């Protein structure tokens, strides 16, 4: 199919999906709205992580650090009287600055060391939030001003806000994937030293990816905090989040545009099903799912079930004599 047509079709499909999402929001009950918002948040986090972990290939377990940072930055801003929108902007800014500083320090490490470093950052952030009472409220947690209006209004508002962020993250991912920036990231993933030798400014690219990812994640945290109305350190800096997000992306296919989205949706649906039905064993079942994903779908759903592979499977065998 000619390129322009596929582009139009893609754009059209996106509009259809976006409309469906919005319509669903207005028709759903409060619990469905909340579930939908949780799903949107998963999509956001996965897309954001994908930039650093998927395209660039740096195994980051730092998602929770940025998420919590955004939640607290937004929350603290709001308790000081800043209106919600501005508070979210403030959170994004804080996320960016933190990404630059952290990136400069951590991005020198690679592989295992980088992974461990990001985990350490999450732990340190949580402890600081726990102990810096004057700023964060400490272990007692932080109460945010509640959005005026009925629960339904609040539900729809945050649902739309989170999905808007998801759309933004998707468009950002598309932009990254198609640009020279994305190409540079993929070069870094393949072979960082070689990339540097062919002229890719590796350090700048790495930090830029980290910042892009960090801003989106921090925004998600800020929206989450405003939605829930109350955050505490062990909740906002939850290491489980840092682990679930990469798993979701891997499930879908890391390093693609739609992979994170698919992975997030499939994982969240599975998680809800499991959690509702298996009250005592849900984390064990989640563990089994994770193991199964790694064994049977290591490259991600999108790649395992792609059209080209299907064609390969169903192709007639090569004629004899062409060994």
């Amino acid at each position, binding site marked *: 199919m000619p390129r322009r047509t596929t582009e139009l079709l893609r754009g059209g499909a996106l509009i259809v999906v976006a409309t469906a999402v919005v319509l669903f929001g207005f028709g759903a009950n409060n619990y469905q709205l909340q579930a939908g918002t949780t799903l949107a948040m998963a999509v956001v986090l996965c897309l954001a992580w994908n930039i650093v*972990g998927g395209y660039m290939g740096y*195994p980051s377990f730092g998602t929770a650090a940025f998420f919590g940072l955004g939640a607290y930055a937004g929350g603290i801003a709001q308790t000081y009287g800043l209106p919600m929108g501005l508070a979210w902007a403030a959170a994004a800014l804080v996320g960016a600055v933190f990404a630059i500083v952290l990136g400069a*320090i*951590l991005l*020198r*490490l690679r*592989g*295992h*060391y980088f*992974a*461990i*470093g990001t*985990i*350490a*950052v999450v*732990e*340190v952030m949580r*402890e*600081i939030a*726990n*102990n810096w009472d004057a700023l964060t409220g400490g272990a007692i947690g932080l109460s945010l001003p509640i959005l005026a209006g009925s629960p339904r209004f609040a539900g729809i508002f945050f649902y739309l806000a989170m999905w808007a962020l998801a759309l933004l993250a998707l468009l950002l991912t598309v932009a990254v994937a198609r640009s020279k920036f994305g190409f540079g990231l993929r070069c870094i993933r393949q072979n960082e030293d070689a990339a540097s030798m062919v002229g890719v400014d590796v350090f700048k690219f790495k930090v830029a990816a980290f910042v892009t990812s960090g801003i989106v994640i921090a925004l998600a945290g800020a929206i989450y905090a405003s939605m829930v109305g109350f955050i505490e350190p062990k909740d906002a800096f939850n290491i489980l989040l840092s*682990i679930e997000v*990469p*798993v979701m992306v*891997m499930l879908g296919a890391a390093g693609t545009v739609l992979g994170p989205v698919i992975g997030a949706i499939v994982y969240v649906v599975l998680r809800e099903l499991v959690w509702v039905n298996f009250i*005592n*064993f*849900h*984390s*064990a079942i*989640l*563990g*089994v*799912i*994770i*193991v199964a994903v*790694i*064994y049977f779908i*290591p490259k991600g759903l999108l790649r395992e079930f792609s059209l080209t592979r299907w064609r390969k499977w169903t192709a007639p065998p090569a004629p004899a004599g062409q060994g």
Partner: protein
Amino acid sequence: MIAQYVANGLLIGSLYACLAVGFSLIYGVLNIINVLHGTFVVLGAYVTIYCAQLLGISPLISALVGCAVMFVFGYLVQRLLINEVVAAPVFISFTLIFGLDLLVNNAMIQGFTATPRSLLVDYGSISLFGLSLSVARLGAMALALVLTGALYWLLRHSQMGRAIIAVRMDRHAAALLGIRVPRVYAITFGIGALMAAAAGGALALVYPITPLLSGVFLGKSFVICVLGGLGIVPGALVGGLALGMLESFGTIVFGSQWSTTVGFVLMLLVLVLRPTGLAGRKGYE
């Protein structure tokens, strides 16, 4: 009083060293982050406690039983499950083992419940030069040295040890030389689990055990190994003692609530400034 602080630091440091030896071995040889480590320790502790309480066996023998059980468990887990991803990127192996950990941990909470359990054995403490020293922790100090020494001996002076080092240096070359690589990996993992169980036995003397401790133990092992040096024999020992001293003095200077933060911050610093850790080189040489 400073002397007591130093003693305290060294004593907790030895417990830490015991805790981390198994973790360090697995990282060093298989190059995977064993997220199951904390769970292994807790399981070893539970086996020790149950044998001692239900069967009336002495704690020492119970701990040995724990070691044996965990060796088999570790061997099987590696052989059947983890072997597939040994050569995979860190992210895959980490996540896989994390999934396994979720499973085992859930089973433990269902099976053992979260109520704390202890070995009701008190060895008391001795007074030396005006310092109060807990006997159990002194025992842990001895155990840490024994484990490190045993590991050293194993790697240098035994056939299996040389095979392990060979596999670590070059997997394919080792296979070409006739070493059965998957078996070596499985045995190494089993030894790591065994050491975790030994630590579990020692820790059971000191702490009330619940499945929730596995996360805490894992976190500490991380910090210890990074501080001391991942993948070298004395790494856990050096790291453990260093962390013990750092937390001790962190408590005095910053207050007890910051003591764990101090550990993580220092871990970050070491990672960034000297990734090979305080004790030096990477790899089992």
